[in-house]
């Protein structure tokens, strides 16, 4: 804003104004008239005799403002953010930046939010409060003019009022949602199909066939069965699968009267394991055989737990050891110690990082999905078998999609791989 009567920056007057109140001096009129007459006579332009102006730099070209400026609630978020988008002007001075300002009620005074480099085209204001109305202004800010010392900014562009809010759908996950719905539908249809009495084939899993063999051996030898449910809590799906298998193992030990030992590292897993074992003994009609110390808590520390369980293996020499659940570095220490005691070892893990250790040291290993199929395989419940079949159908579809993706990508078409990407 320039005040009335004030000189605008960069527009110095060609002729300086006479100072008000200055006394007029008497001018020597005769020589001046003579000179003028001589000049006119000789054809000289009058301008040549005018008083020289002050030297002033040319005014810099005006800066164009950004265009297509919008301020909207950031889509698909939990609120607290406004997304600003714009297009940079076609020409920008060197070192220019886009300044973003925000005004908020009740004062509606502009405060600077950020300076964004040209080319960004968008800015997320993550400091906005939900439900509060804001207005945003952007303008191009160029470096201070060296000649005049004046700040150079473009005319501002102001947005409409906008407020942040939380949304009902997280954008970028449409493909994941569709895939999940399809998968759930396939599993439910398979369960319904199994419930209707159809026979479902499930391939032989030698690790699960060996469960009875291992418990039978422990019964014959009069030794313990060790079941180690990993070191993770019940928020890990592998631990849930492990506890489900523990239920079947406990039923067998209850049936044969074999001693069972379940040392735990995680306290929540410990409580769940105890309930699973107690339930199994009750279901087999042998609550008298269940003892609280069968399922016991050791410690929350990973290696202290490993040391305690390894020591127990060495001292008590169990006939069968189940290492089923989520294991980390302790997997090899436990499995190798168990191997040294001569016990039958059945391991199960879905994470490939520890699988080689189990393969090297255990007699049977449930690899990946076999761990999750165990409860269906052992119980032969049609409902569980149906869900396993649904899982297999989904896997078949994924294999076909993978092959199609490979084929398309080989011909330079990445449509399928881009469709599969999720945020």
């Amino acid at each position, binding site marked *: 804003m320039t005040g009335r009567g004030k000189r605008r920056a960069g527009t110095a007057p060609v002729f300086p104004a006479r100072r008000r109140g200055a006394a007029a001096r008497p001018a020597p009129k005769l020589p001046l008239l003579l000179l003028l007459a001589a000049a006119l006579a000789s054809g000289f332009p009058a301008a040549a005799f005018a008083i020289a102006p002050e030297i002033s730099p040319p005014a810099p070209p005006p800066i164009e403002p950004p265009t297509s400026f919008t301020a909207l609630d950031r889509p698909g*978020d939990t609120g607290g953010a406004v997304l600003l988008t714009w297009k940079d002007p076609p020409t920008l001075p060197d070192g220019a930046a886009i300044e973003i300002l925000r005004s908020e009620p009740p004062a509606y005074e502009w405060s600077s939010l950020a300076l964004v480099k040209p080319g960004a085209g968008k800015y997320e204001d993550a400091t906005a409060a939900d439900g509060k109305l804001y207005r945003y202004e952007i303008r191009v800010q160029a470096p201070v003019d060296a000649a005049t010392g004046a700040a150079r900014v473009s005319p501002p562009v102001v947005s409409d009022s906008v407020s942040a809010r939380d949304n009902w759908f997280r954008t970028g996950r449409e493909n994941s949602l569709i895939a999940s719905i399809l998968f759930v539908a396939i599993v439910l249809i398979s369960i319904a199909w199994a419930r209707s009495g159809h026979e479902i084939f499930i391939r032989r899993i030698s690790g699960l066939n060996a469960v009875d063999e291992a418990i039978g051996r422990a019964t014959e030898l009069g030794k313990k069965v060790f079941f180690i449910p990993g070191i993770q809590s019940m928020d890990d799906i592998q631990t849930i699968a492990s506890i489900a298998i523990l239920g079947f193992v406990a039923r067998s030990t209850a049936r044969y009267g074999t001693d069972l030992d379940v040392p735990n590292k995680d306290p929540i897993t410990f409580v769940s394991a105890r309930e699973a074992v107690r339930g199994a003994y009750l279901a087999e009609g042998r609550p008298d055989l269940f003892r609280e110390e069968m399922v016991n808590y050791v410690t929350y520390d990973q290696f*202290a737990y490993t040391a305690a369980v390894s020591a127990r293996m060495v001292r008590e020499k169990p006939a069968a050891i189940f290492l089923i659940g989520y294991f980390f570095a302790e997997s090899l220490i436990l499995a190798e110690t168990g191997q040294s005691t001569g016990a039958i070892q059945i391991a199960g893990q879905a994470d490939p990082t520890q699988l080689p250790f189990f393969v090297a040291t255990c007699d049977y290993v449930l690899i990946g999905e076999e761990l999750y199929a165990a409860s269906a395989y052992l119980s032969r419940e049609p409902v569980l078998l149906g869900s396993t079949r649904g899982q297999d159908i989904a896997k078949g579809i994924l294999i076909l999609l993978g092959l199609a993706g490979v084929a398309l990508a080989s011909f330079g078409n990445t449509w399928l791989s881009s469709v599969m990407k999720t945020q």
Partner: protein
Amino acid sequence: MNFDFGRVALVLVLAVVPIIGIALGMRAPALRSRIPILIGIFAGLIPIFSLYIPKQFLSGPTGMSPRLDQWLIILAGFALLLGIVNVVQNNSRKISRREKGWFFAAVLLIGLLVTSAFGIWGWWTKMGIGFMPDGSPTPFKWVEDRFFQPLQSTIFSLLAFFMASAAFRAFRARNTEATILLIAAGLVMAGRVPLLEFLAAPFPPLHPSASAASQFLGGLAERIMDIPNGAAQSGIIIGAALGAASMAIRVILGIERGYLGLGQGE
């Protein structure tokens, strides 16, 4: 308002309803057994919904899903108390009955009591469990540094020896699969270790050949790891992910009840 709604909904669904259910189920065991299934269903659905619905009451920093994680920590605290009681009971019984290994049970109980006492003393005197103002360790820290950490490191270091013994057993060429494993392992090890350069070190004329051969083996090892090994791992991961999803559906629908000690179809 959103914040309040999430909190109230969570308390209702996972606390009030189960308590009422348990109270009602005192005379109806069938109803009582359904309460854990209901809790499992809600606890399973909330994180899934929060993946797709970014509403504050569900997915915000104080929404139902993050609050559920906090509840898990609180639950773990109570479960840990149960665990400690179990440790004391089991080991006291071992000592009193002079069972096999009772001496170790005594050591465990002494360790538990002494460490707990130092921890409680640190809290009582406001000294904490780290360092004192003069920089010297508190008794708790002293026990941790002098006993706990060295013992922990000792157990972890055993891994190297167990790895060697397991590798020795796994790499015996008993059948075709084991032979393939042996060859692949040999190539990967040769590619990852600069063995040829080491062997050729005393013979300068062999240096270029050793370097080239080592480079070739390194490339081969990378290819073995990236292509056959990577493909097999991807297969296991995809299968396991589908299995986990299928298991999650079974848990959420209340079909899988083994983890609750209920058995199937009860």
